[in-house]
């Protein structure tokens, strides 16, 4: 039993820190720290910085131009980036499509698609969920019918994160109606724009736009855009589900959020004393800090298991559940700490910095509301509990 990282891992951690110190622009940090939505330009700039360093495809083996990191190195990279307030890598190209192409793509697909992901040239979106099929992918209805060298695609996708910025999208579509619902699903790539494809933003609870609906009306897609075999898309979907879960707990994000809460609670005054000295508020912080401290170890234990077994097990669903609980609790505290100062709708204060600038916390309530998504999207916590029931309890 040894919780220390190896010398090599520590050296790697230092290398990441040095890189972030040198290469993460201050204006990007500041944008992340503000809690506001990040414009495409900021995300793109960061992608390109990582791309130049060769660190955008964090899970990619060296043969495809990736860094060839171990799971622990990926974990360290993720945590350090979060702690440094780097933007999260938009995962659809680098972390999702990349590995799919590497494992299921043709030679031509590998050659044409992978380099453009690594360079940050292509911005991919994901078309999985549908209005009638959120967590229940087997029931999806978007259909692709063969017409010569093309598929003709009709249907609707939803919850397409940052789709408004994308020039490419990969979708799960139904190519066969008969048989079990999981059979007859295929994995198809499309261009944006395409004739008949329309991306409409969905406004979220706090007022921001980060997810979209995608309408598909007789969109013609070359058959060469199929990944893997026709009707075998379910295999790819399952591969993705179990593929990249090293950062599923969001430990680094929560560590950063905890620091922000503490810092806020030291500055806010209640009854003549810093809020952090209020025993009920301090108790709230302490409880979540303890949960986070435990979760760090839980995360490392599962990483260690995954490294030994070669793949993460269903128990990583625990990380999703607890990770979102800890994160949401921290967002709750940041909002709560502000008291009445949390009230303003971001952007409606006309005299900038006069009012809430010094507290630098205008977005805390919005962030709290926005982060309610984390326990819903990407497989809701209820779905995670179902997975765990099935896999670990044998029920």
């Amino acid at each position: 039993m040894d919780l220390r990282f190896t010398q090599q891992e520590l050296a790697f951690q230092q290398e990441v820190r040095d890189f972030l110190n040198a290469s993460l622009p201050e204006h990007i940090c500041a944008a992340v720290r503000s809690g506001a939505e990040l414009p495409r330009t900021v995300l793109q700039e960061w992608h390109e910085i990582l791309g130049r360093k060769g660190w955008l495809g964090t899970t990619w083996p060296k043969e495809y131009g990736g860094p060839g990191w171990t799971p622990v190195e990926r974990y360290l990279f993720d945590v350090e980036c979060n702690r440094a307030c780097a933007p999260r890598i938009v995962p659809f190209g680098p972390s999702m499509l990349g590995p799919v192409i590497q494992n299921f793509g043709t030679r031509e697909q590998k050659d044409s698609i992978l380099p453009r992901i690594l360079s940050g040239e292509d911005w991919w979106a994901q078309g999985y969920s549908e209005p009638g099929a959120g967590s229940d992918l087997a029931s999806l209805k978007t259909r692709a019918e063969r017409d010569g060298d093309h598929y003709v695609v009709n249907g609707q996708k939803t919850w397409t994160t940052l789709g408004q910025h994308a020039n490419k999208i990969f979708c799960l579509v139904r190519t066969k109606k008969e048989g079990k619902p999981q059979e007859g699903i295929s994995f198809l790539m499309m261009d944006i724009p395409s004739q008949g494809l329309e991306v409409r933003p969905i406004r979220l609870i706090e007022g921001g736009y980060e997810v979209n609906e995608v309408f598909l009306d007789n969109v013609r897609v070359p058959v060469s855009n199929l990944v893997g075999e026709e009707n075998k898309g379910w295999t790819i979907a399952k591969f993705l589900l179990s593929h990249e879960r090293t950062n599923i707990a969001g430990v680094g994000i929560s560590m950063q959020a905890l620091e922000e809460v503490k810092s806020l609670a030291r500055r806010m005054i209640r009854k003549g004393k810093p809020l952090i000295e209020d025993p009920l508020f301090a108790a709230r912080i302490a409880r979540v800090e303890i949960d986070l401290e435990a979760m760090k170890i839980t995360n490392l234990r599962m990483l260690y298991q995954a490294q030994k077994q070669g793949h993460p097990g269903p128990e990583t669903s625990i990380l999703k559940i607890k990770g979102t609980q800890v994160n949401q609790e921290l967002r709750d505290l940041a909002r709560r700490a502000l008291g009445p100062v949390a009230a303003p709708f971001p952007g409606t204060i006309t005299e900038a910095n006069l009012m809430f600038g010094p507290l630098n916390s205008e977005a805390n309530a919005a962030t709290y509301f926005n982060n309610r998504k984390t326990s819903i999207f990407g497989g809701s916590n209820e779905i995670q509990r179902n997975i765990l029931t099935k896999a670990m309890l044998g029920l």
Partner: protein
Amino acid sequence: MNFDMTEDRQMLSETLSRFLADRYDWETRNRVAYTAPYTDAGRWSELAGLGIPGALVPEEQGGFGGTGFDISVVFEALGRALCPEPFLPTLLASRALEAVGKDQTGLVDGSIRYAVGISEIDAPYDLAGMATCARANGAGFSLSGRKTAVYGAQVADRILIAALLDGKPAVFEIDPRAAGITPYGMIDGGGAAEVLLDGTPAVLLARDAGALLNSVIRAGRLALCAEAVGAMQFAYELLLDYLKTRRQFGVAIGSFQALQHRTVDLLTEIEQARSITIAAADALDGPDGDLKAAMAKNLIGRAARLVAEETIQMSGGIGMTWEYAGSHYSKRLVMIDHQLGDTDDCLEEVMQSYAA
């Protein structure tokens, strides 16, 4: 013992609910809630014409209500419709004006809008930490300091301000045009403003006004609790509807027992919230008024957050969208805790009653 509403209050509730349904549809609500000046002058007048501000004012002051149950009936209906009109500042002002015996004709007929500035950034919930202070200034006074999140101040004709006079809290009236007003919309809808006072001329309404301000605050807390009860009830009904109609894995998601049991727990907490609000309304101006209001605001803070978060979660992605009414109910339910004393603050007030 009687848990039926009086006929008068029942009529008031129905009148207000019907008006909100007919004249304050969801589109109107969202426009007013999220667009400056966060009130609709025409509908405000109509509401005044229906006697809604008057229901918050005792008869001796020109109204026809003003008891705890009058307040809770009005705010429950407002909460159910998520109405963003600034009735909370109206109530707060009315309680202050009542205490000093000031005429409330303009408040009752809706022609004069009031706001009340008590909270400060570093003393949001306690009078003792207040820094805004008054200085005698020939015939009158001048105020200096900053009041934060003053609800309705963006459209107020007059603002009542709590400020220290000779080391004790006092209440003054100012003309907003003489102060620095920075208006903004609130994340859950409606408007407020920061009020900057820098030698602002003011009229003294009450010296040594700790008890007066407590009476203002506890009435405000009651109103917020009742508003939350109305909003929770509606959010719960929306959720039930969603559970019955939304299908997943081939069945209505309401058939999943895990969701059923969580829904029952919401129902339980909503009924408890309703009960403690009744207790606070009943006790409002009695000896237990402050205590019961603090108890109610604490329970509401816990229940409303639970209802807000669980209805989002159980409504899946839909609950996260602006388009879905439920998301706005969730926002309001959470943000009510940021007004006039939060869960912890109110709990600490209850704990103080244990000191031997």
